[in-house]
Protein backbone atom coordinates (compact mmCIF):
# COMPACT_ATOMS: atom_id res chain seq x y z
CA UNK A 1 0.00 0.00 0.00
CA UNK A 2 2.49 2.57 -1.21
CA UNK A 3 4.62 2.12 1.88
CA UNK A 4 1.71 3.00 4.18
CA UNK A 5 1.09 0.88 7.27
CA UNK A 6 -2.26 -0.88 7.47
CA UNK A 7 -5.19 1.35 8.22
CA UNK A 8 -6.31 1.00 11.83
CA UNK A 9 -9.29 2.17 13.82
CA UNK A 10 -7.08 4.63 15.71
CA UNK A 11 -6.16 6.29 12.39
CA UNK A 12 -9.81 6.94 11.60
CA UNK A 13 -10.50 8.22 15.11
CA UNK A 14 -7.55 10.64 14.81
CA UNK A 15 -8.93 11.89 11.49
CA UNK A 16 -12.35 12.47 13.06
CA UNK A 17 -10.75 14.22 16.02
CA UNK A 18 -9.01 16.59 13.58
CA UNK A 19 -12.36 17.35 11.96
CA UNK A 20 -14.26 18.03 15.17
CA UNK A 21 -11.42 19.62 17.11
CA UNK A 22 -12.07 17.19 19.97
CA UNK A 23 -9.61 14.82 21.69
CA UNK A 24 -9.60 11.32 20.16
CA UNK A 25 -11.08 9.89 23.37
CA UNK A 26 -14.23 11.94 22.83
CA UNK A 27 -14.90 10.97 19.23
CA UNK A 28 -18.28 9.23 18.96
CA UNK A 29 -18.72 5.82 17.38
CA UNK A 30 -21.36 7.00 14.88
CA UNK A 31 -20.55 8.91 11.73
CA UNK A 32 -22.72 10.92 9.36
CA UNK A 33 -22.25 11.72 5.70
CA UNK A 34 -19.91 14.62 6.36
CA UNK A 35 -17.59 12.62 8.62
CA UNK A 36 -17.66 9.81 6.09
CA UNK A 37 -16.68 12.12 3.23
CA UNK A 38 -13.85 13.43 5.41
CA UNK A 39 -12.57 9.91 6.16
CA UNK A 40 -12.71 8.81 2.51
CA UNK A 41 -10.86 11.97 1.50
CA UNK A 42 -8.09 11.53 4.09
CA UNK A 43 -7.69 7.79 3.52
CA UNK A 44 -7.37 8.45 -0.20
CA UNK A 45 -4.79 11.17 0.45
CA UNK A 46 -2.82 8.92 2.77
CA UNK A 47 -2.82 5.93 0.44
CA UNK A 48 -2.63 7.99 -2.72
CA UNK A 49 -5.42 6.09 -4.43
CA UNK A 50 -9.14 6.33 -4.98
CA UNK A 51 -11.37 4.02 -3.01
CA UNK A 52 -14.18 4.07 -5.61
CA UNK A 53 -16.93 3.18 -3.16
CA UNK A 54 -20.47 2.72 -4.36
CA UNK A 55 -23.52 4.49 -2.95
CA UNK A 56 -24.62 1.20 -1.39
CA UNK A 57 -21.26 0.68 0.30
CA UNK A 58 -21.33 4.22 1.67
CA UNK A 59 -24.95 3.98 2.79
CA UNK A 60 -24.17 0.88 4.85
CA UNK A 61 -21.54 2.74 6.90
CA UNK A 62 -22.98 3.94 10.19
CA UNK A 63 -20.02 3.67 12.56
CA UNK A 64 -16.23 4.03 12.63
CA UNK A 65 -15.94 0.23 12.65
CA UNK A 66 -18.19 -0.07 9.57
CA UNK A 67 -15.99 2.47 7.80
CA UNK A 68 -12.79 0.65 8.73
CA UNK A 69 -14.10 -2.64 7.33
CA UNK A 70 -15.21 -1.07 4.04
CA UNK A 71 -11.99 0.93 3.60
CA UNK A 72 -9.79 -2.11 4.27
CA UNK A 73 -11.70 -4.14 1.70
CA UNK A 74 -11.46 -1.33 -0.85
CA UNK A 75 -7.73 -0.82 -0.24
CA UNK A 76 -7.05 -4.54 -0.57
CA UNK A 77 -9.05 -4.69 -3.79
CA UNK A 78 -7.20 -1.68 -5.16
CA UNK A 79 -3.83 -3.24 -4.24
CA UNK A 80 -4.80 -6.53 -5.91
CA UNK A 81 -6.11 -4.79 -8.98
Amino acid sequence: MAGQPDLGRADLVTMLADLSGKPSAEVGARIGSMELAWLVHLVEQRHDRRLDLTDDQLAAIRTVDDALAVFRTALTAAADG
Partner: protein
Amino acid sequence: MTTGNPAATDPIWVDEILLRGRSADICLRLPEPVDRGSLRRLVAEAQTRLAAAGLRPGGAAALRLPPSLAYVVNLLATWRSGAQAILLDHRLTDHEVDRALQRLAPQVVVAPIRTGGGGLRVFVDVTEGVTAYADRPAVSGHAVIQLSSGSTGPSKVIGRTADDLVAEVHRYTRVDGVALPGERIILLPSMVHVLGLVGGLLYGLHAGVELVPPQRLAGDAVLAAIAADDSPATVLGVPFHIGLLASTRPAGPLPQFRRMTTGGELVPAAVARAFADRYGVPLGNMYGMTEVGVIGTDLHGRHRPSITPAPGVEVREVDGELWVSCPASPYVGLSDPTRWADGWLRTRDAGTVDPGTRLVTVRGRLDSQVSVGGLKVDLTEVEATVAALPGVAAAVVVFDGAVTAYVQPDGPLSEQTLDELLAERLAGYKRPRTLRLVDQLPRTTTGKLVRSVDALRTAAT
Protein backbone atom coordinates in the same frame (compact mmCIF):
# COMPACT_ATOMS: atom_id res chain seq x y z
CA MET B 1 -48.92 37.32 16.63
CA THR B 2 -49.27 38.43 13.01
CA THR B 3 -49.81 36.45 9.85
CA GLY B 4 -47.48 36.83 6.88
CA ASN B 5 -49.10 36.02 3.59
CA PRO B 6 -47.70 38.05 0.73
CA ALA B 7 -49.30 38.07 -2.72
CA ALA B 8 -47.74 35.85 -5.37
CA THR B 9 -45.46 37.46 -7.97
CA ASP B 10 -45.90 37.42 -11.76
CA PRO B 11 -43.76 34.47 -12.96
CA ILE B 12 -42.16 36.64 -15.62
CA TRP B 13 -39.31 37.27 -13.12
CA VAL B 14 -37.93 33.82 -13.89
CA ASP B 15 -37.34 34.71 -17.53
CA GLU B 16 -36.21 38.26 -16.84
CA ILE B 17 -33.86 37.61 -13.95
CA LEU B 18 -32.71 34.00 -14.35
CA LEU B 19 -33.16 32.69 -17.88
CA ARG B 20 -32.40 35.76 -19.97
CA GLY B 21 -29.24 35.65 -22.08
CA ARG B 22 -27.64 34.04 -25.10
CA SER B 23 -28.82 30.52 -25.80
CA ALA B 24 -25.28 29.26 -26.35
CA ASP B 25 -23.95 30.46 -22.99
CA ILE B 26 -23.06 27.63 -20.61
CA CYS B 27 -24.98 27.72 -17.32
CA LEU B 28 -23.89 24.43 -15.76
CA ARG B 29 -21.07 21.93 -16.26
CA LEU B 30 -22.03 18.53 -14.85
CA PRO B 31 -19.39 18.03 -16.43
CA GLU B 32 -21.40 17.91 -19.66
CA PRO B 33 -22.21 21.53 -20.50
CA VAL B 34 -25.82 22.67 -20.19
CA ASP B 35 -26.38 25.86 -22.16
CA ARG B 36 -29.08 28.43 -21.54
CA GLY B 37 -31.10 27.34 -24.58
CA SER B 38 -31.16 23.73 -23.35
CA LEU B 39 -32.06 24.85 -19.85
CA ARG B 40 -35.01 26.89 -21.16
CA ARG B 41 -36.20 23.88 -23.17
CA LEU B 42 -35.88 21.50 -20.19
CA VAL B 43 -37.77 23.95 -17.96
CA ALA B 44 -40.62 24.26 -20.47
CA GLU B 45 -40.87 20.45 -20.73
CA ALA B 46 -40.93 20.12 -16.95
CA GLN B 47 -43.72 22.72 -16.75
CA THR B 48 -45.82 20.49 -18.98
CA ARG B 49 -45.20 17.47 -16.71
CA LEU B 50 -45.95 19.46 -13.55
CA ALA B 51 -49.19 20.80 -15.03
CA ALA B 52 -50.24 17.32 -16.15
CA ALA B 53 -49.80 16.10 -12.57
CA GLY B 54 -51.97 18.90 -11.19
CA LEU B 55 -49.75 21.94 -10.55
CA ARG B 56 -51.53 25.20 -11.26
CA PRO B 57 -50.67 28.89 -10.76
CA GLY B 58 -51.06 29.71 -7.08
CA GLY B 59 -50.40 26.12 -6.08
CA ALA B 60 -47.22 24.55 -4.70
CA ALA B 61 -44.78 21.84 -5.74
CA ALA B 62 -42.67 20.05 -3.15
CA LEU B 63 -39.21 19.19 -4.46
CA ARG B 64 -37.63 16.26 -2.66
CA LEU B 65 -34.62 15.97 -4.91
CA PRO B 66 -30.89 15.70 -4.31
CA PRO B 67 -28.68 18.31 -6.00
CA SER B 68 -29.19 17.52 -9.68
CA LEU B 69 -30.13 19.00 -13.01
CA ALA B 70 -33.64 17.67 -12.27
CA TYR B 71 -33.75 19.85 -9.15
CA VAL B 72 -32.68 22.98 -11.04
CA VAL B 73 -35.12 22.35 -13.86
CA ASN B 74 -38.12 21.56 -11.65
CA LEU B 75 -37.43 24.52 -9.38
CA LEU B 76 -37.40 26.94 -12.30
CA ALA B 77 -40.40 25.20 -13.89
CA THR B 78 -42.38 25.51 -10.65
CA TRP B 79 -41.70 29.23 -10.44
CA ARG B 80 -42.33 29.72 -14.15
CA SER B 81 -45.71 28.01 -13.63
CA GLY B 82 -46.62 30.74 -11.13
CA ALA B 83 -46.39 28.27 -8.28
CA GLN B 84 -44.55 27.99 -4.99
CA ALA B 85 -41.55 25.67 -4.53
CA ILE B 86 -41.30 23.81 -1.23
CA LEU B 87 -37.69 22.70 -0.85
CA LEU B 88 -37.24 19.47 1.08
CA ASP B 89 -33.66 18.43 1.77
CA HIS B 90 -33.27 14.96 0.26
CA ARG B 91 -31.64 13.79 3.50
CA LEU B 92 -34.86 14.27 5.48
CA THR B 93 -36.54 11.05 6.57
CA ASP B 94 -39.98 9.93 5.34
CA HIS B 95 -41.28 10.87 8.78
CA GLU B 96 -39.98 14.45 8.47
CA VAL B 97 -41.17 14.78 4.89
CA ASP B 98 -44.67 13.45 5.67
CA ARG B 99 -45.04 15.98 8.45
CA ALA B 100 -43.98 18.83 6.13
CA LEU B 101 -46.30 17.68 3.32
CA GLN B 102 -49.30 17.45 5.64
CA ARG B 103 -48.61 20.95 6.86
CA LEU B 104 -47.92 22.56 3.47
CA ALA B 105 -50.25 20.50 1.23
CA PRO B 106 -48.53 20.93 -2.16
CA GLN B 107 -50.43 20.04 -5.32
CA VAL B 108 -47.56 17.85 -6.52
CA VAL B 109 -44.45 16.18 -5.13
CA VAL B 110 -41.35 15.75 -7.29
CA ALA B 111 -39.04 12.94 -6.14
CA PRO B 112 -36.46 10.66 -7.74
CA ILE B 113 -37.56 7.45 -9.42
CA ARG B 114 -33.96 6.54 -10.09
CA THR B 115 -30.64 8.04 -9.04
CA GLY B 116 -27.27 7.23 -10.49
CA GLY B 117 -23.60 8.07 -10.17
CA GLY B 118 -20.89 6.87 -7.84
CA GLY B 119 -20.52 7.46 -4.15
CA LEU B 120 -19.95 10.94 -2.68
CA ARG B 121 -21.38 12.64 -5.75
CA VAL B 122 -22.03 16.36 -5.30
CA PHE B 123 -24.47 16.39 -8.21
CA VAL B 124 -26.55 13.29 -8.80
CA ASP B 125 -27.99 11.90 -12.02
CA VAL B 126 -31.73 11.80 -11.30
CA THR B 127 -34.79 10.65 -13.17
CA GLU B 128 -37.66 12.31 -11.41
CA GLY B 129 -41.33 11.43 -11.03
CA VAL B 130 -44.17 13.84 -10.35
CA THR B 131 -47.12 12.73 -8.23
CA ALA B 132 -50.30 14.57 -7.28
CA TYR B 133 -50.66 15.24 -3.55
CA ALA B 134 -53.40 17.73 -2.59
CA ASP B 135 -55.82 19.86 -4.55
CA ARG B 136 -55.28 23.04 -2.61
CA PRO B 137 -53.71 26.48 -3.23
CA ALA B 138 -50.32 27.22 -1.69
CA VAL B 139 -50.27 28.18 1.99
CA SER B 140 -48.84 31.58 1.08
CA GLY B 141 -47.75 33.72 -1.86
CA HIS B 142 -44.06 33.08 -1.19
CA ALA B 143 -42.02 31.79 -4.14
CA VAL B 144 -40.01 29.45 -1.98
CA ILE B 145 -40.59 27.65 1.29
CA GLN B 146 -37.67 26.30 3.26
CA LEU B 147 -37.70 24.36 6.49
CA SER B 148 -35.36 25.13 9.32
CA SER B 149 -34.73 22.90 12.30
CA GLY B 150 -37.12 24.29 14.90
CA SER B 151 -36.75 24.89 18.60
CA THR B 152 -40.36 23.97 19.32
CA GLY B 153 -40.31 20.48 17.85
CA PRO B 154 -41.25 20.42 14.17
CA SER B 155 -39.39 22.51 11.63
CA LYS B 156 -39.91 26.23 11.25
CA VAL B 157 -41.53 27.16 7.92
CA ILE B 158 -39.71 30.05 6.27
CA GLY B 159 -41.06 31.76 3.16
CA ARG B 160 -39.36 34.12 0.76
CA THR B 161 -41.09 36.08 -1.96
CA ALA B 162 -39.86 36.31 -5.54
CA ASP B 163 -39.16 40.02 -4.95
CA ASP B 164 -37.04 39.12 -1.95
CA LEU B 165 -35.05 36.52 -3.90
CA VAL B 166 -34.52 38.98 -6.76
CA ALA B 167 -33.39 41.65 -4.30
CA GLU B 168 -30.86 39.21 -2.86
CA VAL B 169 -29.55 38.31 -6.32
CA HIS B 170 -29.09 42.03 -7.02
CA ARG B 171 -27.38 42.41 -3.64
CA TYR B 172 -24.81 39.83 -4.72
CA THR B 173 -24.09 41.78 -7.92
CA ARG B 174 -23.05 44.74 -5.76
CA VAL B 175 -20.73 42.80 -3.43
CA ASP B 176 -17.03 43.23 -4.13
CA GLY B 177 -15.35 39.86 -4.59
CA VAL B 178 -18.12 37.68 -6.05
CA ALA B 179 -17.52 35.67 -9.24
CA LEU B 180 -18.04 37.87 -12.29
CA PRO B 181 -19.77 37.19 -15.64
CA GLY B 182 -17.71 34.71 -17.65
CA GLU B 183 -16.11 33.26 -14.51
CA ARG B 184 -16.98 30.03 -12.68
CA ILE B 185 -18.32 29.03 -9.29
CA ILE B 186 -17.18 25.62 -8.08
CA LEU B 187 -20.39 24.83 -6.24
CA LEU B 188 -20.24 22.70 -3.08
CA PRO B 189 -23.16 23.72 -0.81
CA SER B 190 -26.60 22.21 -1.32
CA MET B 191 -28.85 24.29 -3.58
CA VAL B 192 -31.78 23.51 -1.26
CA HIS B 193 -30.28 25.86 1.33
CA VAL B 194 -29.84 29.58 1.01
CA LEU B 195 -26.12 29.86 0.29
CA GLY B 196 -26.11 27.36 -2.57
CA LEU B 197 -29.56 28.38 -3.78
CA VAL B 198 -29.17 32.15 -4.05
CA GLY B 199 -25.40 32.69 -3.75
CA GLY B 200 -24.75 29.83 -6.18
CA LEU B 201 -27.62 28.90 -8.47
CA LEU B 202 -29.71 32.06 -8.78
CA TYR B 203 -26.80 34.50 -8.78
CA GLY B 204 -24.92 32.32 -11.29
CA LEU B 205 -27.86 32.12 -13.69
CA HIS B 206 -28.49 35.86 -13.39
CA ALA B 207 -24.89 37.00 -13.75
CA GLY B 208 -23.75 34.55 -16.42
CA VAL B 209 -21.40 32.69 -14.10
CA GLU B 210 -20.89 29.00 -14.90
CA LEU B 211 -21.86 26.67 -12.07
CA VAL B 212 -19.50 23.73 -11.74
CA PRO B 213 -20.18 21.10 -9.09
CA PRO B 214 -17.10 18.89 -8.57
CA GLN B 215 -17.46 15.28 -9.65
CA ARG B 216 -17.48 14.17 -6.03
CA LEU B 217 -17.00 15.48 -2.53
CA ALA B 218 -13.23 15.22 -2.20
CA GLY B 219 -10.36 17.69 -2.26
CA ASP B 220 -8.81 16.33 -5.44
CA ALA B 221 -12.16 16.58 -7.26
CA VAL B 222 -12.52 20.25 -6.27
CA LEU B 223 -9.02 20.96 -7.58
CA ALA B 224 -9.80 19.06 -10.79
CA ALA B 225 -12.92 21.20 -11.29
CA ILE B 226 -10.84 24.36 -10.86
CA ALA B 227 -8.21 23.09 -13.30
CA ALA B 228 -10.75 21.97 -15.92
CA ASP B 229 -10.92 25.41 -17.52
CA ASP B 230 -8.79 28.56 -17.77
CA SER B 231 -11.46 30.99 -16.60
CA PRO B 232 -11.25 32.34 -13.03
CA ALA B 233 -12.86 30.06 -10.44
CA THR B 234 -14.36 30.82 -7.03
CA VAL B 235 -14.98 27.86 -4.73
CA LEU B 236 -18.20 28.30 -2.78
CA GLY B 237 -18.62 26.09 0.28
CA VAL B 238 -18.85 25.78 4.03
CA PRO B 239 -15.94 25.54 6.50
CA PHE B 240 -15.84 21.74 6.15
CA HIS B 241 -14.80 22.22 2.53
CA ILE B 242 -11.88 24.47 3.54
CA GLY B 243 -10.57 21.53 5.52
CA LEU B 244 -10.89 19.26 2.48
CA LEU B 245 -8.81 21.63 0.36
CA ALA B 246 -6.30 22.44 3.09
CA SER B 247 -5.53 18.72 3.38
CA THR B 248 -5.13 18.13 -0.37
CA ARG B 249 -1.83 18.34 -2.20
CA PRO B 250 -2.33 20.15 -5.52
CA ALA B 251 -0.60 18.47 -8.45
CA GLY B 252 0.52 21.81 -9.88
CA PRO B 253 -0.13 25.53 -9.91
CA LEU B 254 -3.74 26.69 -10.18
CA PRO B 255 -3.55 30.26 -11.54
CA GLN B 256 -7.29 30.29 -12.22
CA PHE B 257 -8.13 29.68 -8.52
CA ARG B 258 -9.21 33.16 -7.39
CA ARG B 259 -10.93 32.75 -4.08
CA MET B 260 -12.72 30.45 -1.70
CA THR B 261 -15.83 31.77 -0.01
CA THR B 262 -17.66 30.03 2.79
CA GLY B 263 -20.73 30.63 4.88
CA GLY B 264 -22.54 28.66 7.50
CA GLU B 265 -20.39 28.98 10.58
CA LEU B 266 -17.24 30.55 11.94
CA VAL B 267 -13.98 29.25 10.51
CA PRO B 268 -11.35 28.24 13.07
CA ALA B 269 -8.25 30.43 12.66
CA ALA B 270 -5.97 27.38 12.29
CA VAL B 271 -8.04 26.07 9.37
CA ALA B 272 -7.94 29.47 7.67
CA ARG B 273 -4.15 29.60 8.10
CA ALA B 274 -3.65 26.08 6.73
CA PHE B 275 -5.70 26.99 3.67
CA ALA B 276 -3.83 30.27 3.13
CA ASP B 277 -0.45 28.54 3.44
CA ARG B 278 -1.37 25.98 0.81
CA TYR B 279 -3.16 28.10 -1.80
CA GLY B 280 -2.35 31.76 -1.14
CA VAL B 281 -5.75 32.95 -2.36
CA PRO B 282 -8.27 34.99 -0.35
CA LEU B 283 -10.56 33.05 1.95
CA GLY B 284 -13.82 34.97 1.98
CA ASN B 285 -16.48 34.75 4.62
CA MET B 286 -20.23 35.27 4.37
CA TYR B 287 -22.90 35.59 7.02
CA GLY B 288 -26.52 34.91 6.19
CA MET B 289 -29.73 33.27 7.29
CA THR B 290 -32.42 31.24 5.59
CA GLU B 291 -34.91 34.00 6.48
CA VAL B 292 -33.14 36.84 4.66
CA GLY B 293 -30.26 35.40 2.65
CA VAL B 294 -26.85 37.06 2.66
CA ILE B 295 -26.49 39.63 5.45
CA GLY B 296 -22.83 40.52 5.22
CA THR B 297 -19.55 39.52 3.60
CA ASP B 298 -15.79 39.72 3.92
CA LEU B 299 -14.83 38.20 0.59
CA HIS B 300 -11.22 39.41 0.72
CA GLY B 301 -10.70 37.92 4.17
CA ARG B 302 -9.43 41.27 5.46
CA HIS B 303 -11.65 41.59 8.51
CA ARG B 304 -11.94 37.98 9.68
CA PRO B 305 -14.00 37.11 11.62
CA SER B 306 -15.98 40.35 11.05
CA ILE B 307 -18.10 41.13 8.01
CA THR B 308 -19.44 44.25 6.28
CA PRO B 309 -23.23 44.42 5.84
CA ALA B 310 -24.27 43.64 2.27
CA PRO B 311 -25.59 46.58 0.21
CA GLY B 312 -29.08 47.50 1.36
CA VAL B 313 -28.89 45.44 4.55
CA GLU B 314 -28.89 47.08 7.95
CA VAL B 315 -27.60 45.29 11.02
CA ARG B 316 -27.86 46.58 14.55
CA GLU B 317 -26.96 45.29 17.97
CA VAL B 318 -29.68 45.21 20.60
CA ASP B 319 -28.73 43.97 24.07
CA GLY B 320 -25.92 41.87 22.61
CA GLU B 321 -28.10 40.29 19.90
CA LEU B 322 -27.77 41.07 16.17
CA TRP B 323 -30.94 42.31 14.47
CA VAL B 324 -31.16 42.53 10.69
CA SER B 325 -33.50 44.58 8.53
CA CYS B 326 -36.27 42.43 7.03
CA PRO B 327 -39.32 44.29 5.68
CA ALA B 328 -41.86 41.48 6.16
CA SER B 329 -42.08 38.50 8.48
CA PRO B 330 -40.43 35.50 6.81
CA TYR B 331 -42.44 33.01 8.83
CA VAL B 332 -45.45 31.36 7.26
CA GLY B 333 -48.70 31.52 9.17
CA LEU B 334 -48.48 32.84 12.69
CA SER B 335 -45.36 34.89 13.19
CA ASP B 336 -43.63 35.06 16.53
CA PRO B 337 -43.08 38.72 17.53
CA THR B 338 -40.05 37.66 19.55
CA ARG B 339 -38.43 36.60 16.24
CA TRP B 340 -39.63 39.35 13.89
CA ALA B 341 -41.33 42.68 14.51
CA ASP B 342 -41.51 46.11 12.88
CA GLY B 343 -39.16 45.30 10.02
CA TRP B 344 -36.41 43.71 12.13
CA LEU B 345 -35.48 40.05 12.40
CA ARG B 346 -33.88 38.92 15.63
CA THR B 347 -31.08 36.68 14.44
CA ARG B 348 -30.56 34.90 17.79
CA ASP B 349 -26.86 35.41 17.09
CA ALA B 350 -24.82 37.15 19.74
CA GLY B 351 -22.66 39.84 18.20
CA THR B 352 -21.44 43.39 17.98
CA VAL B 353 -21.65 46.20 15.42
CA ASP B 354 -18.75 48.66 15.39
CA PRO B 355 -20.31 52.13 15.38
CA GLY B 356 -17.45 53.61 13.34
CA THR B 357 -16.71 50.97 10.68
CA ARG B 358 -20.17 49.24 10.72
CA LEU B 359 -18.24 45.94 10.84
CA VAL B 360 -20.34 43.14 12.31
CA THR B 361 -18.78 40.44 14.48
CA VAL B 362 -20.82 37.32 15.15
CA ARG B 363 -20.00 35.70 18.49
CA GLY B 364 -22.20 32.60 18.42
CA ARG B 365 -25.76 31.47 19.02
CA LEU B 366 -27.99 32.68 21.81
CA ASP B 367 -30.31 29.69 21.49
CA SER B 368 -29.98 25.94 21.07
CA GLN B 369 -29.14 26.02 17.35
CA VAL B 370 -25.81 24.59 16.18
CA SER B 371 -24.23 24.21 12.76
CA VAL B 372 -23.33 20.76 11.45
CA GLY B 373 -21.42 21.04 8.19
CA GLY B 374 -23.15 24.34 7.46
CA LEU B 375 -26.62 22.93 8.17
CA LYS B 376 -28.54 24.35 11.10
CA VAL B 377 -29.63 21.85 13.72
CA ASP B 378 -31.75 22.85 16.67
CA LEU B 379 -30.79 20.72 19.66
CA THR B 380 -34.28 21.19 21.09
CA GLU B 381 -35.78 19.42 18.05
CA VAL B 382 -33.32 16.55 18.43
CA GLU B 383 -33.96 16.31 22.16
CA ALA B 384 -37.75 16.37 21.74
CA THR B 385 -37.46 13.59 19.14
CA VAL B 386 -35.23 11.42 21.35
CA ALA B 387 -37.40 12.00 24.44
CA ALA B 388 -40.55 11.00 22.52
CA LEU B 389 -39.15 7.60 21.47
CA PRO B 390 -40.70 4.48 22.97
CA GLY B 391 -38.58 3.19 25.87
CA VAL B 392 -37.11 6.60 26.69
CA ALA B 393 -37.92 8.18 30.06
CA ALA B 394 -35.91 11.37 29.57
CA ALA B 395 -33.16 12.75 27.35
CA VAL B 396 -30.73 15.64 27.21
CA VAL B 397 -29.02 16.54 23.93
CA VAL B 398 -25.93 18.74 23.99
CA PHE B 399 -23.29 19.91 21.53
CA ASP B 400 -19.72 19.21 22.62
CA GLY B 401 -18.12 19.48 19.20
CA ALA B 402 -20.75 17.03 17.94
CA VAL B 403 -24.38 16.28 18.79
CA THR B 404 -24.41 14.00 21.84
CA ALA B 405 -27.52 12.49 23.46
CA TYR B 406 -27.73 11.32 27.08
CA VAL B 407 -30.70 9.00 27.40
CA GLN B 408 -32.45 7.59 30.47
CA PRO B 409 -34.42 4.48 29.44
CA ASP B 410 -37.62 3.40 31.18
CA GLY B 411 -37.00 -0.27 30.53
CA PRO B 412 -34.73 -2.45 28.41
CA LEU B 413 -33.30 -0.32 25.58
CA SER B 414 -30.18 -0.82 23.51
CA GLU B 415 -28.13 1.81 21.71
CA GLN B 416 -28.79 0.00 18.47
CA THR B 417 -32.56 0.15 18.95
CA LEU B 418 -32.33 3.85 19.73
CA ASP B 419 -30.16 4.39 16.68
CA GLU B 420 -32.63 2.60 14.42
CA LEU B 421 -35.63 4.51 15.80
CA LEU B 422 -33.83 7.81 15.33
CA ALA B 423 -32.84 6.91 11.77
CA GLU B 424 -36.56 6.73 10.95
CA ARG B 425 -37.30 10.13 12.45
CA LEU B 426 -34.32 12.45 11.97
CA ALA B 427 -32.16 13.29 8.96
CA GLY B 428 -28.61 11.98 9.33
CA TYR B 429 -27.02 15.36 9.92
CA LYS B 430 -29.32 15.96 12.91
CA ARG B 431 -28.73 12.58 14.54
CA PRO B 432 -26.51 12.29 17.63
CA ARG B 433 -22.99 11.05 16.91
CA THR B 434 -22.78 9.66 20.43
CA LEU B 435 -25.61 8.03 22.39
CA ARG B 436 -25.03 7.46 26.07
CA LEU B 437 -27.50 5.41 28.07
CA VAL B 438 -27.59 6.40 31.76
CA ASP B 439 -29.58 4.91 34.62
CA GLN B 440 -30.50 8.33 35.94
CA LEU B 441 -29.98 11.69 34.28
CA PRO B 442 -28.69 14.35 36.67
CA ARG B 443 -31.39 16.73 37.89
CA THR B 444 -31.47 19.90 39.96
CA THR B 445 -33.06 19.89 43.39
CA THR B 446 -36.26 21.13 41.75
CA GLY B 447 -36.21 18.20 39.34
CA LYS B 448 -35.06 19.97 36.19
CA LEU B 449 -32.69 18.14 33.88
CA VAL B 450 -29.08 19.32 34.19
CA ARG B 451 -27.45 20.34 30.89
CA SER B 452 -23.85 20.77 32.00
CA VAL B 453 -21.64 18.57 29.83
CA ASP B 454 -19.36 17.76 32.80
CA ALA B 455 -22.28 16.60 34.97
CA LEU B 456 -23.69 14.53 32.09
CA ARG B 457 -20.33 12.89 31.42
CA THR B 458 -19.97 12.03 35.10
CA ALA B 459 -23.46 10.48 35.11
CA ALA B 460 -22.54 8.39 32.07
CA THR B 461 -19.41 6.87 33.59
